[in-house]
């Protein structure tokens, strides 16, 4: 019967990622990373059936298929080589859910480098598509290791600009910017505050607000009357476990 009590943290995070896409309608759902990918596919398989999503290579599959299995049969509904992905970014019909090595209270994200970018202590991926994503369409983030070195007072490089940068930039350049939510292994965060400062939207079951505050290097809003992140439904658990990620690849992001 009901397996709600058995939902594990990875499944709760998958559902929290899926929820990022609620209300998006017919756009390109573009999660990056295993938990976000399972989440995006879950959203499409349940409450957002009009989404299209990528196979992370070059096509849009119209069927539900598992992560980590390159031989899984795909019903191809369209072709999206990288050039088309960029065209879609600039069209605005996309919502990306990507990682952040560092994120600050305004939602500034860093995936480029740790330390001074001129000669970094640690070179990371580079700017990748973050600068273009943020000023063109909705963005959400997934941070599997929430601690004071990922939720930082100030990011070393702004790859994806947050709300303070957008205020500075002003209209009309900031008109397509939205950081919808940040999902971490401890909770869900958004920017639904008067000055778009990050707040706690919910904490995952078993996590306390104190734990979240402790693991965050800046002051979070919304620390009173915090709700719990919703649990996966039985249907969602079935889809995650049996259809979208039967191999449990999502669990590898929690080490």
């Amino acid at each position: 019967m009901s397996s709600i009590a058995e939902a594990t943290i990875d499944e709760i995070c998958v559902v929290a990622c899926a929820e990022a896409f609620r209300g998006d309608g017919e756009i390109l759902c573009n999660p990056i990373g295993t938990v976000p990918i399972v989440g995006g596919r879950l959203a499409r398989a349940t409450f957002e059936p009009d989404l299209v999503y990528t196979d992370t290579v070059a096509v849009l599959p119209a069927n539900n298929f598992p992560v980590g299995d390159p031989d899984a049969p795909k019903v191809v509904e369209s072709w999206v080589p990288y050039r088309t992905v960029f065209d879609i970014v600039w069209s605005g019909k996309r919502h990306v859910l990507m990682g952040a090595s560092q994120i600050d209270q305004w939602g500034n994200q860093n995936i480029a480098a740790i330390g001074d970018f001129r000669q970094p202590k640690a070179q990371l991926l580079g700017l990748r598509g973050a600068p273009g994503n943020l000023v063109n369409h909705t963005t959400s983030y997934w941070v599997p290791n929430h601690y004071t070195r990922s939720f930082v007072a100030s990011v070393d490089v702004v790859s994806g600009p947050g709300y303070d940068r957008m205020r500075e930039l002003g209209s009309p350049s900031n008109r397509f910017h939205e950081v919808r939510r940040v999902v971490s292994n401890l909770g869900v965060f958004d920017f639904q505050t008067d000055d778009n400062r990050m707040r706690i939207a919910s904490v995952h079951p078993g996590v306390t607000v104190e734990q979240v505050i402790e693991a965050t290097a800046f002051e979070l809003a919304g620390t009173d009357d915090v709700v719990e992140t919703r649990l996966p439904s039985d249907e969602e658990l079935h889809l995650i476990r049996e259809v979208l990620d039967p191999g449990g690849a999502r669990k590898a992001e929690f080490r």
Partner: protein
Amino acid sequence: MRAFGTMTTPKEAVLPVWAGSRARAIVAAMVDKRMTEDEVVSELKDGMTIGIGGWGSRRKPMSLVRAILRSDLKDLTVVAYGGPDIGLLCAAGKVRRAVYGFVSLDSIPLEPHFRQARQSGAIEFTELDEGAFYLGLLAASHRVPFYPTRAGLGSDMLVMNPDLRTVTSPYDDGEELVAIPAFKLDAALIHMNRADAGGNGQFLGPDLYFDDLFAMAADKTYLSTEKIVPTESLLDEGSVHTLRIQRIFTDGVVEAPRGAHFTECPPDYGRDEAFQREYAATARDPEAWEAFRSTYLDAPSHAEYLKALEARS
């Protein structure tokens, strides 16, 4: 598995008999651009700006990259959706400046040799949004000074690249945009699944990436290919949509079976993950790097490299 359905068109089905012989006559007159990797490298000069096609660890012209590694070339500016091409060229000390949106081995997200070069300050760098990078290639291809984009506004892209300028729309909206300058390339290196001797290139995998733009953006483009086929056979394995490199943009054709190894080159072969792991591990271990270098990179030709690969068990 092939991303495209194969569309083989029996010639006699679409062309009258006389057209077949005429087509053959035209092919016979086509310029023959075949050359070797070393001949390509002999046309490159110190300090050149060289674009490299492919994406991450996918369909990179690795036999041409290795020919550069064993040459005396130096001070190169390398422009690429970076993978082991940039990593190897950095490790061998060939790079003065790298121009990239990212450098990644895909299955290994961070390119360790490139990281070392950045962290030690060994190279200059131009790091851009990866979509903006596409516009730099497009601008050079179209011979305009820049293409405008919103990408970069608000991020540190403009801080990291103080030479980047913005433009204001001349229309009523007056919007400010980033002007991505044309990436003028002295030479481009790309790898195709098939090509003819005249330099018409064909990709058979799921993505062309930006190889057509690299070819157009460069003064000279050198194309390596898994297999040189007669022009009349170019439609044997893929539809007309796969013929995306036109010979007016190519200057040399190198036949290099497994020429993209260890990067992937579907449908011909996938990535050699074991080899890539070995390559990546050499960044932590100077001795392993020397062994890797002498066994694989110092192989005097692509044929010798393939023999060294065969000797791996």
